[in-house]
């Protein structure tokens, strides 16, 4: 290999960083000597599928995206389990915890995010875990083999998936959520009620509108104390109350950060040699927690690293799907609506189906699908493309197949 090649250092062996590398290799396979540093001692895996790993529906090898062989194959130097501890921007090199120093021409920060730990008494007790990595899943699986009951704090996507996974592993799980609406970032009241009912039917205990004030226990956590004074016994407590961008390293090196590492539309930081992608970035005041925008960031960033410079990142609508087997749930866009919007609503409680589409000026702007989400992708397309749905309005909520037949019928009449 030629030593003349530029050097790219990637901090973070997660989905965002490696996807960027993959995209880059497609565009410019020989441009860089690439080094990747990662905290975890694995190759790259699909974090989205941790829920399925926890529930036992997938095995660890099934969620691996790139085995170590892949790095070798592409001439990438992988430093797994050896996180970077310092960025020396003046010398343009990074240093790892084991003391390895690697110089860079371009640096890609993909440090992701850290789960938020509620600052309540007892939050540092053994048996209190977050739900972020394979390590966390291993600890939860281990606890499930020992303890009877668990509490999950946070009724967002991760919390529900964790609660479901532990429940499937035989634990009596209580899900504690501050709002009265589960998944309040993704669902409206109606759909959330259906979801709550479904989870209860699966054996989960729900404590909604519940504030955690303390984790109790001696050697190890034993229970959760709520603001109303009640206590929930739990040999395991999972905190799933959100994430915050991991920016410590960047901040320490003087890269401009807000809540996340501030990037422009090319994913470049305030240091022109340094790029950042994924959950650690802040783009136009927005931070990220879902996978779809990260894929797009990777695509854009790779284009710039490859020196093509022809792509720009624009924040797009996002769509969410819950990874709980047996619960078909999808939401996208502005599903709350408000002034100037109109709703199409369908309820079929027997089938457990609730669908709501939000329209503005004859365009679809949001969708909540519960129980039958197979048209979610199509609705998402209509949202993103701003399609005028007036001709489909009467059938829109009944799915693409009805609308296609209507289009076909219209065409049939016309010819």
């Amino acid at each position, binding site marked *: 290999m030629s030593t003349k090649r530029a050097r790219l250092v990637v901090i973070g062996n997660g989905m965002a960083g490696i996807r960027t590398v993959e995209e880059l290799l497609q565009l410019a396979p020989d441009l860089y000597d690439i080094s990747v540093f990662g905290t975890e001692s694995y190759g790259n895996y699909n974090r*989205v599928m941790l829920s399925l790993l926890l529930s036992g529906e997938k095995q660890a090898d099934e969620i691996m995206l790139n085995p170590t062989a892949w790095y070798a194959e592409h001439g990438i130097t992988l430093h797994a389990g050896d996180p970077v501890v310092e960025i020396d921007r003046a010398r343009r090199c990074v240093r790892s915890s084991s003391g390895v120093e690697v110089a860079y021409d371009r640096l890609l920060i993909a440090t992701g995010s850290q789960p938020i730990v509620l600052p309540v008494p007892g939050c540092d007790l053994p048996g209190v875990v977050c739900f972020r990595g394979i390590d966390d899943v291993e600890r939860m699986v281990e606890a499930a083999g020992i303890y009877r009951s668990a509490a999950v704090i946070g009724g967002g996507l991760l919390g529900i998936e964790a609660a479901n996974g532990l429940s499937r592993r035989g634990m009596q799980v209580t899900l504690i959520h501050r709002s009265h609406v589960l998944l309040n970032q993704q669902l409206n009241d109606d759909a959330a009620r259906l979801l709550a009912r479904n989870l209860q039917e699966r054996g989960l205990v729900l404590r909604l509108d519940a504030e955690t004030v303390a984790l109790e226990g001696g050697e190890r956590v034993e229970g959760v104390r709520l603001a109303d004074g009640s206590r929930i016994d739990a040999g395991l407590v999972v905190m799933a109350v959100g994430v915050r961008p991991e920016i410590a390293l960047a901040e320490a090196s003087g890269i401009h950060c807000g809540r996340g590492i501030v990037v422009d539309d090319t994913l470049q930081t305030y240091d022109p040699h340094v790029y950042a992608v994924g959950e650690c970035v802040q783009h136009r005041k927005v931070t990220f927690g879902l996978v779809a925008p990260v894929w797009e960031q990777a695509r854009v960033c790779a284009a710039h690293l490859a020196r093509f410079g022809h792509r720009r990142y624009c924040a797009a609508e996002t769509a969410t799907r819950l*990874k709980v087997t047996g619960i078909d749930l999808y939401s996208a866009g502005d599903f709350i609506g408000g002034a100037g919007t*109109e709703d199409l609503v369908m309820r079929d409680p027997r089938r457990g189906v609730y669908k709501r589409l939000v329209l503005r000026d004859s365009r679809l702007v949001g969708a909540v699908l519960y129980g039958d989400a197979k048209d979610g*992708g199509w609705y998402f397309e209509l949202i993103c493309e701003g399609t005028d749905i007036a001709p489909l309005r009467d059938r829109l909520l009944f799915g693409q*197949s009805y609308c296609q*037949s209507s289009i076909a019928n219209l065409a049939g009449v016309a010819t």
Partner: protein
Amino acid sequence: MSGHVATTCPYCGVGCGVLAGVVASGAVTVAGDPQHGSNQGRLCVKGAALGETMGLQGRLLHPQMRGPGGALRRVTWDEALDRVADGFRSVIDRHGPEAVAFYVSGQLLTEDYYVVNKLAKGYLGTANIDTNSRLCMSSAVAGHKRAFGEDVVPGCYADMEQAELVVLVGSNTAWCHPVVFQRIVKAREEGANLRLVVIDPRFTATCESADLHLPIRPGTDVWLFNGLLAFLFRYGVMDAVFVEAHTRDFAQTLATAEHDAADPAEVARICGVQLADLLTFYRLFARHEKTVTLFSQGVNQSSSGTDKVNSIINCHLLTGRIGKPGTGPFSITGQPNAMGGREVGGLANMLAAHMELHDPVHRDIVQSFWASPRIAAKPGLKAVELFDAVLEGRVKALWIMATNPVVSLPDADRVKRALGACELVVCSDIVASTDTNALAHVLLPALGWGEKDGTVTSSERRISRQRPFLPSPGEARADWRIVCDVARRLGFERGFQFAEPHEIFIEHAGLTAFRNHAPHADGAPAARRQLNLGALASLSRSAYEALAPVQWPVNEDGVGTLRLFADGHYAHDDGRACFVMTRARPPVHAPDREYPLVLNTGRVRDQWHTMTRTGKAPRLTGHLSEPYVDMHPHDALRCGVREGELARVLSRWGTMVARVRHGGGILAGSVFVPIHWNDQFASDARVGGLVNPVVDPVSGEPEFKHTPIRVEPFPVRWYGFAFGRRALPTSGLSYWTLIRGENFLRYEIAHRERPADCSAWARRWLGVDDPAADWLEYEDQGTSVYRAAHVIDDRIESCVFLSSRHDLPARRWLASLFSGERLEEADRIGLLVGEPPGADVDTGPVVCSCFGVGRNTIREAVRVKGLDTPAQITAALRAGGNCGSCMPELRQLIAEVRTAPSA
């Protein structure tokens, strides 16, 4: 079909033979009787659907009487009959026999008719017995009597097949007498050189097959036929020998015709047709010796109906085209036994057996034959006058049999008021709920078709048996028996001791033959009548049971008569036929600024009268399901109404609401409304309420075909429909129509106010109060669309669709769901769309749930496009392009397709 019974269809006057039977399941099967001369095996859709109308749902099965509170209660026959007899006797005692009346029906059998006529005219001594045939063919009766001296249809259906020219006047034969029409069409198809001319203000289904359609202005028929008479005479198209030998009054009749209509150009102008078309018709008539002029309600239901009939007959007399094969004026009647009723004298201006009230000889003949205590001497009240008399209190007890005058009479709201004011209203019916029964004090359950036993006479004088093949349901009794029961209670033991219809029939046949000859020198009163069934007067019971269809008069050998007047001998005293002066005159009420349009009424193809039977047959409700007002688009525009929306139709006499339709066959200035719908089937669709109570001065037949009206928008906020397995409440709805289907009732509805909460409203309306009910719904508030369905145990129970617009989804597929035992899961989704899920390819179980890509879709793509990697699948189908959770499945699918043996 084993063990079938040969009987006769109970609908129109064609009188088709039907083979009916009951299969093991209890269902009634029907087929056309190939042996029957009228239909030769054919049936129309109404006849073919007879089996579907036989269910006992809605039947009146027990006598009922209205209590002081207005509620009906079940009573015994004795109670009911005593009440009727006491009521009639009391009224007669106080006010005389003219204060009681009977209003009967062309649906009755000849035997029923005979007995009630005998009771009224011979025993009570009143001629106040009229019939709904008054509304239908009394102008033809009057015309026949004026021209021929007796009410005789000279020809037969075969004449229409043998003719060179068939002129249909005021008859939508294709819809109203389909089997006769099929005979004409078939004759044409088989190469007969048969021209067809239709004279009708509307372009009807009949006109589709016509060589010429003359859309004359409503009510101008007399000008047309006077013009024809003058035209024929001018061009020498005349059988001078016939006119000279067998007719009278020709000169003045011709003078009258020429006075009105000597100039075809003027006739064309008055009739509103092109001169060239008019002349085409006149020339066709002139050139074809074998001409049949078939006429129906468009001629009869007019204030100059009798003159219209005679103006037609005049043309046939002029040309001698009568009594010969392929010729003749032909009145086709609307009801199965209008003719039978005429034969027994069941009209207020007839006596019995074609004898006249005003003729002392006739009265003597009849009274002697009956040996009755008295005989009515003056004509009774004809239908419209009869109900006027009821309203004015001159008639205080009224017995209505097998008809529904609150729906069918003109100015029907007045009829309603009349019945409301009447001391005693008795209704014999087979159905419990009708608009008329709602006003009855006593309801008597009668036998219906398939249960009753007797004879009917068709339009071609063919007497056919109606035979029972079903047991009598509940406590229902034959009409003749009910009448005899009451007669005996009134003290008339002797004349009403009939044990069975056979005895009545032979008495009737005997009366037709009684002193039926020219007066002898001995001076015993006698009179010749064409109607002579003498040969049937000695029929044994078994011969009556087995009686084959026969056209009267019947000679000594029991052989019928195909055509009358072949010998040129008519029933007038001098044996001649009469030309009748017919002075053309317009309908009584002309349209004006306030009521600028002309209302025409009539039947639709698949319904019958007030729908008590046809309304039960799902097969018959699909053709035209809702009451409608058919109008020209220009008129609709001027009235501010739109097709598919609702309109109010108003005349000086009443109003109704119906859906606007542009059938395409209506002249500007005219509208058409069907006669069938009533309060049992719609909120406000009784067209009878609008019709002017104007009658023909001779026949007393109402002018149903010409009432000035106007049309206004009927503004509603929303339209909708519902299907239910059970009846739904209709109170509080601005508009509703009920349509019975296969295992469901359908309601078309509209309302002025939109409910604030559609879901709550729909649940309340459909009666779904259980919050845990299987209730699925869809709402689009922006366009005011709401749809819901109620499912019980995976079976659809009801559904409702509401919208601010009237273009709701098609009803057909939803209707079909009610026939299924179990609602398929896929159909459940379609429930709220109103149509089945598209027959799209089965994409298989979802693999990529982010983009909803199915297993089969992926396998197909891998196979056809030769995809090797998950990334290629993502590029092609987007599957796996978001969260990537399905990558393992994608790899596995690639492997599967690779290893699968290629098909």
